[in-house]
């Protein structure tokens, strides 16, 4: 069965394509990308998708999501999370290991991959824990997990406080050439803080998490990665000083990569006025100068990827007073729209840069397929309308998580179709 995606604006940074073109798919593979390919290659029977006026790019990959299964299915399941991904234009996601139990052994890795094969709408990659039970004390069975499919390691949700343990983990992981993903925040400084420490926390009287708590942790982790000659990936960078530390480390050749989230790139701590718990997230929404530094970091390549840190929660964990509300919110269905609204329509980034950040880089960092429309590649493709205006309504999310600071906001840009291995999994906003 052939599929022709016709007349779209193809953005494929890996192959230097940024023009109107057709894409021909046969089975699970891309056959070719060119103008007028349709006439010669298609001989009857092809499904045609008219992409006129739309952007067609290699499938978006979110390298940082929480799917909550097993153990926390009230928040999300692999099926619902993958449908949220498909709806948001993602063809693959990598899920963090802080489920119940924690993904710290190969049986858990295999179990999630097996369930994903049966139920998931998109490709699921598994990130294993760096330490047993994410307790930060002993290394998890890293090699065994990698051999069973884990693509990265992380104790996300916690900073690995013991520097010796983290350095050992980095060193051990380097044998398998996979990245260690750091949730970098010095807990003794961030402690009980509920938001960014700054003018807004002072006005609201809310305990703050200072940016320096992140900056110290990033500095330490970079030094340890440099020492261990290992690959380090900094999750959800939110502080200006962290961006600068990563920039300097890259200059001197440290194998460090980094991601930023759509919310840290588009919102400030002023969103916390009024105490809407949908603004509570870790690391917290920071002040405008930090946001500016993050955007500059995206532009100059200091920050490699955009990942949403999709963190769905049950309503009762968010519908409480601010101090005790859970950190995080659902993100897969707003990620592309927020990025296009905040960074493309404001002329901060080009479409080519956005596809690099949301597809090419995450694939490269995780070492997974994707990020390219080259002939022979798996046909993971995202089609989006960069100009479509829509109002975020969390009631209609596929994700079980309904909390988002973007609820009710108008976004400009939305995924129209998601193709995974040659099959539509989402078309016109409907997950199939």
């Amino acid at each position: 069965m052939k599929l022709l995606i016709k007349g779209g604006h193809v953005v494929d940074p890996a192959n230097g394509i940024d023009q109107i073109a057709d894409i021909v798919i046969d089975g699970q593979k891309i056959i070719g990308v060119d103008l007028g390919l349709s006439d010669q290659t298609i001989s009857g029977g092809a499904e045609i998708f008219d992409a006129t006026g739309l952007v067609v790019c290699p499938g978006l990959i979110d390298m940082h999501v929480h799917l909550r299964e097993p153990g926390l299915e009230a928040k999300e399941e692999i099926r619902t999370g993958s449908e949220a991904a498909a709806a948001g234009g993602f063809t693959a996601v990598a899920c963090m290991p802080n489920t119940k139990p924690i993904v710290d052994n190969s049986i858990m890795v295999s179990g999630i991959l097996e369930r994903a094969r049966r139920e998931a709408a998109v490709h699921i990659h598994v990130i294993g824990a760096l330490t047993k039970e994410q307790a930060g004390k002993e290394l998890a069975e890293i090699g065994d997990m990698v051999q069973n499919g884990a693509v990265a390691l992380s104790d996300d949700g916690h900073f690995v406080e013991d520097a010796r343990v983290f350095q050992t983990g980095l060193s051990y992981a380097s044998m398998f050439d996979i990245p260690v993903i750091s949730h970098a925040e010095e807990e003794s400084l961030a402690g009980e803080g509920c938001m960014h420490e700054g003018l807004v926390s002072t006005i609201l009287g809310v305990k703050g998490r200072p940016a320096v708590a992140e900056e110290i942790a990033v500095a330490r982790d970079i030094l340890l990665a440099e020492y261990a000659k290992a690959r380090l990936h900094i999750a959800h960078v939110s502080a200006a000083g962290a961006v600068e530390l990563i920039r300097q480390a890259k200059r001197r050749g440290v194998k460090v990569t980094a991601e930023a989230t759509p919310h840290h790139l588009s919102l400030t701590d002023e969103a916390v006025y009024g105490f809407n718990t949908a603004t509570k997230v870790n690391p917290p929404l920071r002040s405008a100068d930090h946001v500016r530094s993050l955007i500059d970091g995206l532009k100059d390549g200091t920050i490699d990827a955009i990942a949403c840190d999709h963190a769905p929660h049950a309503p009762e964990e968010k519908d409480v007073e601010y101090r005790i509300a859970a950190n995080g919110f659902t993100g897969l269905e707003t990620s592309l729209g927020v990025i296009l609204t905040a960074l493309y329509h404001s002329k901060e980034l080009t479409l080519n840069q956005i596809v690099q950040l949301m597809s090419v880089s995450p694939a490269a960092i995780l070492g997974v397929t994707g990020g390219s429309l080259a002939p022979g590649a798996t046909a993971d493709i995202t089609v989006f309308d960069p100009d479509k205006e829509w109002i975020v309504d969390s009631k209609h999310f596929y994700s079980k998580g309904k909390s988002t600071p973007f609820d009710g906001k108008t976004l400009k840009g939305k995924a129209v179709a998601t193709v995974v291995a040659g099959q539509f999994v989402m078309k016109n906003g409907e997950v199939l």
Partner: protein
Amino acid sequence: MMNAGATPKTNHLLGLRETDVSRITDILDTAREMKNIINRDIKKLPTLRGRAIVTLFFEPSTRTRTSFELAGKYLGADVVNITAAASSVVKGESLRDTLLTVEAMGVDAIVMRHSAEGAAHFASQLVKPVIINAGDGAHEHPTQGLLDLFTIRERKQNLSGLKVAILGDILHSRVARSNIWGLQKFGAEVHVAGPTTLMPVDIEKMGVIVHHRVEDAITDADVINVLRIQKERQEKGLFPTAREYARIFGVNAKRLALAKPDAMIMHPGPMNRGLEISHDVAYSNQSSIQEQVQNGVAIRMATLFLTLTGGKTLETIN
């Protein structure tokens, strides 16, 4: 950058930051009339007869709760006190469930004290009764701010141009925040002083002048508002010893001499005499601490009256 949602205008009293000058002036002016009523032999008015007010306190505060209770009763309302256990708050169910239960009982106003910042905002979005914030964590305590404004205005006539020093634990003080907003709205110049460890970051961006020598804040001040120091701050290592605090930051007669001769001394209570304030200063004739207590009832009468009747003047009610 994308903008944040705006807070809707309501009849609630959640904080002085979002309360405009005209509404504050209404409350202050009404409180003057209320104070006359308190000083009568027969205090009871029928103004709020048939209205039900619940004081919902998740933190103990006999002073504030009693003040609201008397205020409601003087105006003829039915007032019920609910003291909720703070321990169940941790589970995250208590506040929501308690508010819904109280609402279901048909009350008109909930006066709420809670240890979490934003608890009153949460309530205002959840239930229909008018919410009056009687202190939410370290955020605001608007009726304390109003009674302080009222007390200053009584002694000094005008707030504009006054130098007001707020001393002590600014970091954890909801009284300080409500005072800062209220005073600045009326043109007072606010100085704050206290240990750096009890001073919130970026506080100067709220428009105040920050000092770390208490003498600098007090010099030529018209008003000195001394905050309560909780000794647990010392246990948490935010200052070394109570003795050192008293020596470096405490307000005593010698420091008071730096202020204007007619400077007034305020304290939201309860005081730690000998720590943040010396005994002689607390009971000097410059002290307005007892007036603050009486004015607190008048301010709470005015607040309940205006929020529950939607701002009709007292005359039309009488």
